[in-house]
């Protein structure tokens, strides 16, 4: 598990998951850290379930229903910050 991932690698891991599972490897480098997954069509409304499953398994965290909001999950940087908060016990 990668529960002690460094700041940079955390972003990279999330990015890799998104690129492989939602962009199917088509990473032309255009997906920016702040880009909204929903607005850019990277993740549809059901795709977030896949993302949550991945985050729970990869980072050994438990995500509550109340945390399933775009503020936490709608870009690479939001997801990364959210995981850090969870790991630090501020989830």
């Amino acid at each position, binding site marked *: 598990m990668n529960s002690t991932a460094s700041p940079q690698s955390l972003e990279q891991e999330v990015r890799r998951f998104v690129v492989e599972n939602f962009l*199917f*490897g*088509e990473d032309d480098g255009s997906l920016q850290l702040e880009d909204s997954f929903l607005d850019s069509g990277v993740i*549809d*409304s*059901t795709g977030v*379930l896949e993302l949550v499953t991945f985050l729970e398994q990869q980072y050994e965290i438990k995500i509550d229903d109340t945390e399933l*909001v*775009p503020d936490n999950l709608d870009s690479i940087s939001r997801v990364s910050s959210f995981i850090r908060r969870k790991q630090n016990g501020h989830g």
Partner: protein
Amino acid sequence: MCGLAGLLNNDGTPADRDVLARMIHGVRHRGPDETGFHLDPASGLGLAHARLSIIDVASGQQPMSVEDGKVWIVFNGEIFNYVELRAELQRKGVRFDTESDTEVVLRMYLDRGEDCVLDLNGQWAFAIWDGRRNRLFLSRDRVGKRPLFYTQAGVAFIFASEIKALLRHPAVKASVDLEALADTFTFWCPLPSKTMFEGILELPPGHSMVVEGGQLRRWQHWRPDFPTGYLDRSEDDLASELLELLTDATRIRLRSDVPVGAYLSGGLDSSVIAALVAQISGSRLRTFSVTFEDREFDESGFQADVIRLLGTSHEQIRCTHEDIGRVFPEVVAHAEKPVLRTAPAPMYLLSGLVRDQGYKVVLTGEGSDEFLGGYDIFKEDKIRRFWARNPESSWRPALLRRLYPYMQNLQAQSDAYRKSFFHVNEDDLESPFFSHLPRWELTSRLRQFLSQDVKSSLSGYDPYRGVRELLPAEFEDWDPFSRAQFLEATVLLPGYILSSQGDRMAMAHSVEGRFPFLDHRVIHFAAQIPPKLRMKVLNEKYLLKRAVRSLVPPTVLSRPKQPYRAPDIVSFFDTKRGRARFSYVEELLSTDRIRAAGLFNPVAVQRLVEKAKKGLAIGVKDNMALVGILSTQIMADRFFGRQSTGV
């Protein structure tokens, strides 16, 4: 129901009978009972017909002629008001040689010319050769129940019921129309006129055309229309008139010289039709249905309620994941276009059951959702508009929970995500496609799988421009509900529901579908029902339910709407074993074959396939992508070959 094919050499070269024979053989499944030809060597004309005998079995052979052999017809379909039209013509002194509806069409043409189609109530695609003027007249029914394709190849104008017949003409070559592919990966089907084959066109629903002196002239004889004012009558009055119309629409659709059965889905529409047939015919009705081993899709419980109430003699086919995957290549070959869901496959199996039971004709419930207001996309449009009027409201978007109750993954979403997905952008409110933007935008994401070459070829192509061209001038004056209905009835109904899932799947086994809800009198009346009664608040098909409440079981009347669907990715992949269920799936999705066809990005497809094998491809988008890519690859394999994909 039948298949037809024909050609007209503009330079007068006599039509080649062998070529015609090959062409009509390509649509033999549509009419296995008889084959007929007519050639006019002096004019370069050739007509061919494959007949499925339903009305006037003894003397309705085609091609049929009148006027001492100067005027000829090949006809696919049924004219349900032929009895009344025939009587009307007889009163004017017209004499008939046969009892068939085909002769009625021909004599209507002699009486009224090309406007004869305005008086026809039915489903048709036909070609009339008027040797008096060397003029070929082709026409297609109002909403696109029966197909008709054409192309110009060299000096020949060539037409047929299905593209596979055209491809048997030596001058016709098959290559992919990339814009049609982009359309399919946006709207689920190519927009009207286009087919997946470059240079081959479909005569759109509600259109006629004339070929004369080497010139083509095409015009629209009918389109869905909505008034700006509605019928101002009580709900009871409106409900009884609707029921009266539906009863008559069903009654004339029982005209047949062979027995007629009905499909049952367990939903409201087919239950209404089955109930009306049982009431009108008075004899024990034969019904047919699909059930699914996969309980998420199975509706056999609701079907049983209807069977019990109506006392029908019922046959059903139980459909497994393997069944769908096994027949899918044949399904795509019959559809002649890619599909994004597997739902046509069980319809293919069902028509096989009907045929095995000795039936040729079934009545079904198509058209009700479009014209009487049944689809969730209409509900979605209402809720999003309601929310947009007060974007800060917290309870208005809570209504989004009422949408798509049958989609488990969507239902598992938090409200926050649901809001984000159905969010209304201010610009969207100005769009004529407001109702359909979420669906079309989601589907257009599938274009990410296209190869770089295809993406480059399509770089200047905007699929929405084509839809804009379909909108009549009055469109903006219609209420939003009618606008959404128009889009649904103009794009998905003919392009997918009545063709890929309808005519092609039924005719694959020589079975004819008939659709009382698509009687143009019903459509015309439905358009005049106030929109608030088509769907009362969020109660879909409200007026229909009111009209038929004494006819169908209460459980069917009150059940949540569940559109007909079938299992997608799991029909092709055994996720427990992590492998494809069929070798053709593995083969056609392999990197080599993807690269050879040139239409998709091999890396992206491989990742999708891996995800599917692991059972992780659960979203709508992944399912549509996989079915769409696989069906396109089947098209490439069957029709286009490696050299002709054009990229």
